[in-house]
């Protein structure tokens, strides 16, 4: 018989470690046609980070995301980056790109001030224009300003910057400190169906509620959360490296190292809890790794709700669950007086 259950799990996760140097650097160059080029050392691994980083540069410069060309991960050309690790790219690399764009924008403002006969501090960059705050009709296109900066002022609008979350050394006596710059929070709820004759778990639905600061690209946040949940399902139910006595892996292939397929994926509802972190670029934090942290716990709680057994080692394979169900039934039979 198939039995349904629901489970809840919550988590927090640190973003931007501070125990050691953790820098990213960037160069932002505004071109004479009003577009911009970003140089960053970070690596796109399919999560869409270059899209988000381009959006950050575009937002800082008042241009469209389409106007930004991102050059990444070429160590001959791009600045060094600590890495696409620890869910730090949007937060740390994003901050470096925002600062580099601000530096390039400062040159644009200094150039446009005399053109619009105002102080640079009275300007803002919006809709591909440098305009006077409160008087958007007094404006000049960013391409125009970039050209003037280059050929008139002799100061090409290029900004570079680096950002490092403030390093806080650990107290050698107490071991205390401030290990991370900021934190994100999430809750996931899993609904499962457990076959009480085979122990098989069918994950039917996962509702995932995540804080990531400002979601710069909500659809990519959803993608990250859905991808994390697929890994969380593998972690909960399937994935296990098995070794023989000699220490050789006995399942070094995808036939026997079981990972979820598209058919194993449940319906997923992603709920983004928007808020603002003053230390992140435009309030953003991160979401990469956090998305898989609560999944396994939610699924195991749901299994407990469905069939009343508590699995305490991962993965919760169907065999483990059936063994636990049988042990529970045997225990119940003993308790009934003859």
């Amino acid at each position: 018989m198939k039995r349904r259950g629901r489970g809840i799990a919550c988590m927090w996760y640190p973003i931007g470690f501070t125990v050691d140097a953790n820098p990213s650097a960037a160069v932002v160059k505004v071109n004479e046609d009003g577009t911009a080029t970003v140089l960053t050392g970070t690596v796109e691994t399919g999560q869409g980070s270059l899209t988000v980083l381009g959006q950050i540069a575009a937002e800082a410069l008042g241009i469209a995301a389409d106007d930004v060309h991102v050059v990444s991960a070429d160590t001959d050309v791009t600045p060094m980056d600590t890495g696409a690790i620890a869910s730090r790219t949007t937060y740390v690399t994003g901050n470096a790109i925002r600062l580099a764009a601000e530096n390039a924008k400062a040159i644009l403002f200094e150039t446009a001030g005399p053109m619009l006969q105002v102080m640079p501090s009275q300007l803002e960059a919006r809709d591909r224009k440098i305009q006077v705050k409160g008087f958007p009709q007094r404006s000049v296109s960013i391409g125009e300003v970039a050209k003037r900066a280059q050929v008139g002022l002799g100061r090409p609008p290029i900004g570079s910057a680096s950002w490092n979350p403030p390093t806080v050394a650990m107290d050698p006596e107490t071991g205390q400190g401030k290990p991370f710059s900021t934190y994100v929070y999430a809750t996931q709820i899993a609904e499962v169906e457990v076959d009480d004759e085979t122990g098989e778990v069918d994950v039917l639905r996962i509702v995932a509620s995540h804080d990531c600061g400002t979601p710069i690209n909500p659809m990519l946040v959803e993608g990250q959360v859905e991808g994390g949940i697929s890994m969380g399902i593998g972690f909960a139910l399937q994935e296990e490296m098995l070794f023989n006595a000699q220490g050789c892996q006995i399942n070094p292939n995808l036939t026997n190292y079981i990972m979820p397929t598209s058919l194993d994926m449940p319906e997923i509802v992603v709920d983004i809890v928007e808020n603002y972190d003053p230390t992140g670029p435009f309030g953003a934090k991160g979401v990469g790794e956090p998305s898989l942290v609560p999944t396994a716990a939610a699924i195991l709680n749901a299994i407990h709700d469905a069939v009343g057994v508590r699995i305490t080692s991962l993965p919760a394979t169907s065999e483990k669950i059936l063994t636990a169900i049988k042990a529970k039934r045997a225990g119940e039979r003993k308790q009934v007086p003859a």
Partner: protein
Amino acid sequence: MKSFGYVAAMDAKHAIELLAEHGAAAKILAGGTDLLVELKDTQRPPGIVVDISRARDLKDIVLTDEGLRIGALATHGEIMRSALIRDLCPALIEAAHSIGAVQTRNLGTIGGNLMTCVPSMDSGPALIALEAQVTVAGADGQRRMPLVDLFVGPRKTSLTPGQLLVEIVIPKPNLGKPAAFQKFGLRKGQALALVNAAAAFWIDDGKDAFKAPCIALGAVAPTVIRAPQAEAYLAGRAITPEAMAEAGRIAATEAKPISDFRASADYRRDLIAVLVKRCLAAAYARATAKTKERVS
């Protein structure tokens, strides 16, 4: 990949000639879903690969006086889409649907699945539950034998060099016999069977009893096997959920599952009992649904 020779057969007759010519040096290529993977890694490549995939006369699914003939080169996808199979032995569609992924089902053939002869093959149990026969051809002519006699051991069939599996035949008396296939794997997509099973039986009119029950089990012995004791228990017995469950328990004692890193033998036996019970229930549901259809 090590080098090997290659010839392509134009039709079944040509394939048999080529196999006779090359004997033990030949390895047959049909869909290639097993052989190509093997060729990439093997240290001992075959002397020559005889590609029969162009032999269109080995592909037909047709109804004859003998029964339903499925050409050895029919792909799992073609089986899933065959109206004849859907009407006459839908359990084969359940089995075909559970094999590999869409790409494997589009290329892989039923003959190849049987001839590779791994214990966990998904084509075997439903065919054996329907008492399928196979036609084997060689230079000295054709012969017909029960499919169970094709299986000798893991990756070992009774065919000798020079012989070709031509077709699978579901005997006419078994067409329309209520049957079902079930598989348990470690995930939903692209899973190897930890256990698979099929059951078929007629309903003795008037008595609502099992008639000519047939149960086949996969992945729990060196080859796909029948469960004769469970079959004997069911024959003539009234159709009840209790009888189905008991047949499952008996079938579990007839298998010889192994313990390995995927699962223990005990767990595999538990699965056999459940899958056999569910196959019997599904076949019965299929039969009663058909009767209702006819009445309305």
